[in-house]
């Protein structure tokens, strides 16, 4: 007996929606087995993970707060991956955005300032993320250096730079030697949307970016170019599209979005710079981009779901004493199953007897 993959002639839109759903269900089954192996009640653990964060308005807000950076980054990464540019250094671009944005917050600290501080921080963060994202893009287009490796190496560089800044030049002089910057002033904090809770203006920004992304990808020539360069690079070159310039564009764009995410993390969630600011949003966004089928609206749905696992993971750590790494295992499972289900969409699986082969 042998298993044979046969290419399908067409992929139905139904299958495109169904495959992530199947992947999520398989992840739940795999998660239940893992919890059982760890000696926990699988149902209780799963409900802590996936249902407990939905039970009150406060933690639903937290889901949006956590989803905001993830979705912003995932939309940018989708553009990269669609055009065959493997930017996996979004975590570093996020940190660099936070450094640039944080710089604005720190220099305006204790001097007369105004409501312009936060928008300027966003712009600075965009700039920082875009410049840092351009480094692997330039190295790829100019020298052909592998962008997967260079963009990932830069994550470590950005994290070490932030570590140095908050322990050295940017350390709060009145902070009892803790490795952290001054607390940002109210002008440098993201505007809250509600009286009680942490829902902030970034959630609106996220929706704007998702809609803009969907329009660009679905309705414009640029969106067509991105897909064409990824799927048929030769045809794209004949059509006169400049793939090197596109590489620079998508890296700058995804870097800028990651930079905004970084500013939002420090100014809405933390309120200062610290040695570690992100629980791996930049890496989670990679999973979100794939789970969302490299489609901005898909990224929004997938990002909210993954944010749920972050909040659920924190709850599970508190109530069930499960290590926080379980969240990462979940995310790994999810990406495995998404990729596997994608295959089932592209290929038909047939089981043949040996004699027939």
């Amino acid at each position: 007996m042998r298993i044979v993959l046969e290419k399908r002639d067409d992929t139905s839109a139904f299958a495109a929606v169904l495959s992530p759903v199947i992947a999520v269900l398989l992840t739940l089954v795999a998660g239940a087995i893992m919890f059982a192996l760890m000696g926990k009640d699988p149902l209780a653990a799963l409900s802590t993970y996936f249902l407990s964060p939905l039970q009150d308005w406060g933690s639903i807000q937290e889901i949006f707060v956590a989803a905001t950076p993830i979705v912003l980054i995932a939309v940018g990464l989708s553009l990269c991956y669609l055009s065959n540019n493997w930017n996996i250094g979004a975590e570093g671009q996020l940190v660099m955005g936070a450094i640039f944005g944080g710089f604005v917050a720190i220099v305006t600290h204790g001097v007369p300032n105004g409501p312009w501080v936060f928008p300027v921080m966003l712009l600075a963060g965009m700039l920082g993320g875009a410049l840092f994202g351009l480094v692997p893009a330039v190295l790829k287009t100019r020298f052909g250096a592998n962008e997967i490796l260079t963009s990932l190496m830069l994550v470590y560089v950005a994290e070490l730079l932030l570590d140095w800044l908050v322990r050295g030049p940017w350390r709060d002089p009145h902070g009892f030697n803790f490795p952290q910057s001054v607390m940002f002033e109210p002008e440098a904090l993201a505007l809250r949307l509600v009286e009680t809770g942490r829902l902030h203006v970034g959630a609106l920004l996220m929706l704007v970016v998702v809609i803009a992304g969907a329009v660009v990808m679905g309705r414009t020539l640029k969106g067509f170019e991105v897909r064409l360069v990824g799927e048929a690079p030769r045809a794209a070159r004949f059509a006169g599209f400049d793939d090197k310039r596109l590489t620079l564009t998508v890296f700058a764009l995804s870097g800028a979005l990651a930079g905004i995410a970084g500013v939002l993390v420090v100014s809405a969630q933390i309120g200062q710079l610290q040695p570690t600011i992100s629980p791996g949003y930049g890496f989670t966004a990679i999973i979100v981009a794939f789970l969302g089928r490299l489609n901005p609206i898909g990224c929004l749905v997938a990002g909210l779901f993954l944010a749920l696992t972050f909040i659920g993971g924190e709850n599970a750590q508190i109530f069930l004493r499960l290590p926080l790494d379980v969240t990462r295992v979940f995310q790994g499972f999810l990406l495995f199953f998404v990729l596997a289900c994608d295959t089932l969409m592209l290929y038909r699986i047939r089981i043949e007897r040996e004699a027939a082969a």
Partner: protein
Amino acid sequence: MTLLEAIILTVITASTPLLIAALGELVVEKAGVLNLGVEGMMIMGAACGFAVAILTGNTWLGVIGAILAGAVLASVFALLTLGLAANQVASGLALSIFGLGLSGVIGASFVGLQREVMPKLFIPGLSDIPFLGRILFNQDPFVYASLALLAGVWWFLFRTRAGLVLRACGENHTSAHALGYPVLRIRLLAVLFGGACAGLAGAYLSLAYTPFWSPGMTAGRGWIALAIVVFASWLPWRAALGAYLFGGVTILQLHAQGAGLAVPSQFLAALPYLVTIVVLVLIMRARSGASAAPAHLGTPFVPDR
């Protein structure tokens, strides 16, 4: 022991895990498969190796556990990329994320425990030779294993028929298939070998390099191993050169920190990563953009009978 001796010794120990992991990945890529999950397999090797060694009280069983852990993770990757023809880049990333997470879960109850590091092999006579003896003949078994692996991989790839077939699968899987070679089976074996090597490299970190396990202890070494393969132009002896270069940079920055150099420690710690980038750029420049990669690296193969 002189300072120079000490430095050379530490460079060798810092380079060994990089060399072992890079050699494994080199074979995988020669077969035409790009497995970006080295970091994940390596850290699983470190966690499982330490866990088994603590539970059984035997370092060697720990090593075997680490090799198995790496191979098991690699088999998940093989199932996805070979069995289901999934995207290799994304599958490798998933493997790294998954491995980092699972190693944290498995290792959670072993954090803070310590055990004796693997003893150095002392060869009477040879180890007593001044300078050379201490450097060449007073290492832990991993170091000798890595050198044997280097020779073995070179011999297999370039001096045996099986190695030739494996390289053929990486250069052009359609032709290899047409000649009747089982492309997917060969790639499966290569991927498993790569996983075993990554697991072994991880075991080195938690059983010989340091006496403990700590979450995330691979600190990007798996990714540097991937960079070394590119640097090496897919040649084993150049991979050794690359591994020792990176090991050297790592140790150099530690010594510079220890010597109280007036440079922030974070800048020195960033050095290995920056050197990786610079080396990747320089190597591509030297090749003037032409890639030495196996022609079918990273492309899935679906047999079309």
